[in-house]
């Protein structure tokens, strides 16, 4: 218990800011960012990104995709295939 308490406090400190679901007020901002990305893809301005930025974007996209797979595993109730 004494080992876990400070570590749990640290986890909670970061999770409160980073893992929080979006509040309804943030959703318009999110939609605007999405539109910016779509317009960036249309005007080919994404070719101006550095490789480092592109890699970071790829990493973030992979993380969102991982959340999708975690949800799938929860819904299937089995890690591989349905129902253990």
């Amino acid at each position: 218990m004494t080992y876990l308490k400070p570590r749990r406090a640290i986890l909670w400190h970061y999770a409160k800011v980073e893992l929080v679901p979006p509040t309804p007020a943030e959703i318009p901002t999110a939609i605007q960012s999405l539109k910016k990305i779509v317009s960036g893809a249309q005007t080919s301005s994404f070719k101006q990104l550095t490789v480092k930025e592109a890699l970071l974007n790829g990493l973030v996209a992979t993380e969102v995709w991982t959340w999708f797979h975690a949800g799938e595993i929860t819904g299937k109730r089995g890690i591989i295939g349905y129902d253990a």
Partner: protein
Amino acid sequence: MVPPMQVSPLLKLGRYSALFLSVAYRESQALQLPETQAEEERRTAAEEKTKQDELKRVERTGRNPRGWHIKVSLHFSGAMWMSKAFCAV
């Protein structure tokens, strides 16, 4: 300690919507699956059991099996005298 990073709202929206949509999708798929080997065996075992119960019931009581229609000749059932007695048909 490093201060926690501010995550863009697009990422938050994307992460949580991906999570909940995938859970809903997989749960709806799980309801539509064909039955597994274990479920099929259980179903056939249950059907066998109802058949066995039915046979045992017939043996025990000696009565007619449920739902079977026994044809009885009108002559022996007394329907003839009944129709003669009660209606002048």
